[in-house]
């Protein structure tokens, strides 16, 4: 019985780390590049084969190559509770030894911002290594017209449906966008994936639909070509100053922000726009995150971030990433940390605004802590 599960080595390993830390001052200069561990474990709080799992496995391949020690990266799927279960588990159990990392997505970020009663984790205790942005496009049935203005006018007149997963899931900012544009779009919940939402659109049950960039290119672009769908707006991308601009994947498509701000009396300071901006930042601009506990050794963290940084200039990686998530540059290191901190901080008043909006507009009761 020589198999050695992780925890058995723990006391021993902790002892070594303690020794290493004690001796650290002695080696401070010689220890410039602290060796990265041989094995990294990435907790993925989603099931095997889902979008985040696929991204994690894709990234694990490239990160392992990019780190000097070429560590073996083990993906540990802990699904449940829409990613809350596994993230809670990571929060309570993970050691800040640099061997354990967490991969999260919009459906992990949103409940944390809304203070879902099940959430026990705190993003402030973690720091990102790399983040992958994504964009998305809203498209409509051709019967609503071809021109943006015409479509918007028709959507304000004729009530139509939008197939969603949950009221507080990835599509929440999109639903907010519809409401802010005054469109008569009503949500139908209970889809098990965005793909099911698209099926409802293709069946004609839903009048409008939304897909993230990679899914749009593979499944919606053919519909647009054959005249079965008309793109309406993109969500845009966030630039370094935190302003939403046109999506490089859809340069000819107006962003939601353009359409909203063109309305009389609308401004960037509107509460609704600020809320949209927050959820856009945490759900799209930083959709997939690779995180480590904040107390991780600073040099180790710097090593990981250098590895991630190197990927952003690696042409092979960028070409592969373009296919996986679209033409978006990953956000790394301090920039990601700054953006994440700003995105995740939602004041109590704003949170209450979201709760009230969901309740008054759609009759959805969201419990917050």
């Amino acid at each position: 019985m020589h198999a050695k599960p992780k925890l058995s080595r723990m006391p021993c390993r902790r002892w070594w780390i303690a020794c290493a830390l004690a001796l650290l001052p002695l080696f401070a200069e010689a220890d410039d590049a602290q060796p990265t561990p041989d094995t990294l474990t990435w907790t993925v709080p989603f099931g095997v084969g889902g979008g985040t799992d696929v991204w994690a496995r894709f990234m694990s391949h490239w990160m392992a190559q990019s780190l000097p020690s070429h560590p073996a990266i083990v993906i540990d799927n802990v699904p449940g509770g829409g990613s809350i279960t596994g993230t809670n588990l990571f929060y309570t159990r993970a050691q800040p030894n640099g061997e354990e990392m967490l991969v999260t997505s919009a459906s992990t970020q949103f409940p944390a911002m809304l203070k879902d009663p099940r959430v026990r984790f705190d993003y402030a205790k973690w720091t990102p290594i790399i983040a992958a942005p994504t964009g998305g496009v809203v498209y409509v049935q051709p019967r609503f017209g071809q021109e943006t203005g015409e479509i918007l006018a028709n959507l304000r007149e004729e009530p139509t449906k939008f197939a969603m997963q949950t009221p507080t899931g990835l599509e929440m900012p999109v639903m907010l966008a519809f409401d802010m544009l005054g469109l008569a779009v009503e949500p139908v919940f209970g889809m098990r994936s965005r793909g099911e939402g698209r099926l409802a659109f293709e069946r004609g049950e839903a009048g409008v639909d939304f897909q993230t960039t990679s899914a749009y290119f593979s499944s919606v672009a053919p519909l647009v070509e054959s005249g079965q769908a008309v793109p309406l707006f993109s969500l845009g991308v966030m630039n370094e100053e935190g302003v939403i601009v046109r999506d490089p994947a859809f340069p000819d498509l107006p962003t939601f922000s353009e359409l909203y701000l063109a309305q009389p009396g609308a401004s960037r300071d509107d509460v609704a726009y600020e809320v949209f901006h927050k959820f856009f930042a945490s759900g799209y601009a930083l959709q997939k995150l690779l995180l480590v506990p904040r107390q991780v050794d600073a040099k180790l963290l710097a090593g990981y971030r250098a590895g991630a940084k190197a990927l952003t200039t690696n042409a092979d990686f960028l070409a592969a990433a373009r296919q996986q998530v679209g033409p978006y540059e990953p956000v790394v290191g301090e920039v990601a940390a700054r953006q994440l901190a700003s995105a995740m901080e939602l004041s109590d008043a704003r949170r209450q605004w979201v709760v009230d909006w969901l309740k008054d507009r759609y009759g959805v009761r969201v419990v917050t802590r």
Partner: protein
Amino acid sequence: MIDALVASLGEVFSASHLVYMGLGVMIGLLVGIIPGLGGIAGMALLLPFLYGMEPGLALGMLMGMVAVIPTGDTFTSVLMGIPGSSASQATVMDGFPLAKKGQAARALASAFLSSLCGGVIGAIVLTGFILVARPLVLAFSSAELFVLTLLGLAMVAVLSGDSLFKGMAACGLGLLAGAIGTAPATGEFRLNLGVEYLFDGIPLIVVGLAIFALPEIVDLLIRRGSIAREQTSLGHGWRQGIRDVVDNRGLVAKCAGMGSLIGTIPGLAGSVVDWLTYAFASKTAKGEKHFGQGDIRGVIAPESANNACACGAMVPTLLFGVPGSGTAAIFLGGLLLLGLEPGVSMITTHLDLTYTIIWSLALANILGAALCLMLARPVAQLTRIPFVLLAPVITTLILFAAFQATRSLGDWYTLVAVGAIGLLFKQAGWSRPAFLIGFVLAPGAETYFYQSVQFHGMAAFLRPGVIIILALIALAFAFPLIKRLVLRRQPPLAVGADVNRQTADTPAPTFGKIDLVLVVGMLALAAGAWYDVSGMSMIGGIFPMLAIAIMAVGALLAGAQAWKGQATWVSQPIGQPLVWLGGLLALIVVASLLGFISTAVLMTLGFIRFVARARWSAALLVAIGIGAFLLGMQALLNLHYPMGWLDAMLF
């Protein structure tokens, strides 16, 4: 199309492709045989190698694994009564009774040959169908899916055994259990008693284990002896099993056809198809019927359907990127990792890859089933071993499988709680499949009903597809009536045997103290659950209320039947089974304190030495085997077990 077909056949039969596919088949069988693992574990083994591989070869490996998972799980379903995955639940119904009759080899041989045929038929259907499937998949809106779940629920009437009322109550309880968690329409939490584990609902695999496997184990422990009550020649049984499939080739073809078509409907998954075909077989079978007591057709029907269904599930996965089953969802992840985007291109520019997938599926089915057929005879020997020797191994396997559901101790406590229901149901003859069908279909029934009303309003129920399916349901109910009318017109002599069987099939309703406990318990539960959901919004609470009503009415009618003296009072012993269940509960508590591995090893050692009274050497051997298995799985698949203080020290 022909070009693509020929090109893909060349690819499929190339040496490197065959080697990789063989590897996938091996892994698929390994994880398929071990209950509770299935496709997810197999994928976890394969995925690290997948990225960067040549797509054709990687697909072969992936398909090899995906194809044989519904094949391997038949072993535990038949031999131990453990449904290894949701696709093999109906197989347990007749497969395990056959094993108890000493016909395990026959049941296994039939199951594997039907799997093989089903898989190949599914692939053939798929080859042509995938080109024209798009409009059909799009024709199934939420309204059609809703009435399909109703069709599934109608099966309860067929499967509820001696009392329709008890079946109805069981189904209502299943629906209520399936409603635990989150309301799909509003995201409200309900029926969770404030326990965090229940926020997500109860996992299907735990319910399957608890409702089928646990009561059987307890039963066998009480009865002593081996699983096979009668000793028959295994070789003879094996040949008989092959012959059974040949004799029922019409049934195989029909069920495989049904399986492949139902599999193409996304959202319904493989969990209903085995029950639909099982009910179909039990309704249409001619001659002597012993469904539920070991009728070989009860094995052939679901087994030919589930492999065909795995083929059919490729249609929505490849064409729409919407997986038709759990395994297909994993397969979809593999596709994305290989850089292949599902969509219309899969039948235009990538048609050759699609055919590679389909034909790998067929070939892997043949390979996997052939391997299992060879294994069937030796493995069936297990049913001759005295059960006390097997019991600790099977118990460990069940705990292992249940804990893989969500890796929480809640899985084990749910196992015991639902196991208690299963035990009472079994002792009192309430329909366990009715409970399971209710449980499986609850989320679909609720979600699709809400969605179809939201999308179409009341017009949802006037759609042509909906009316056709409703007519089918009506036919299913009217069928026995019509049959009886026809039979009555014929001279009684000719159908004498058949009429006798009819009366034997539906004996007078019985009632006993367990029935009384169940009826009272259900009424109390109904009151409590009603109180829990009464504060919810209308669309969030209406479904559990409906489930409560079905359960309460069923229970009341069953009770009233006894009250009015229409049911014969029978004695129903329950003391001993409950003692064993208490033992399992104690084992769980110890395992969560000491750790799973050490508890399993110690329990095996103690049980085999002191309860089974075997020699120390034998006990030690089995115990070490168990420990090695658990440690090996942990290392290989990065699994986790409850880690008590003893495990933390030792391993």
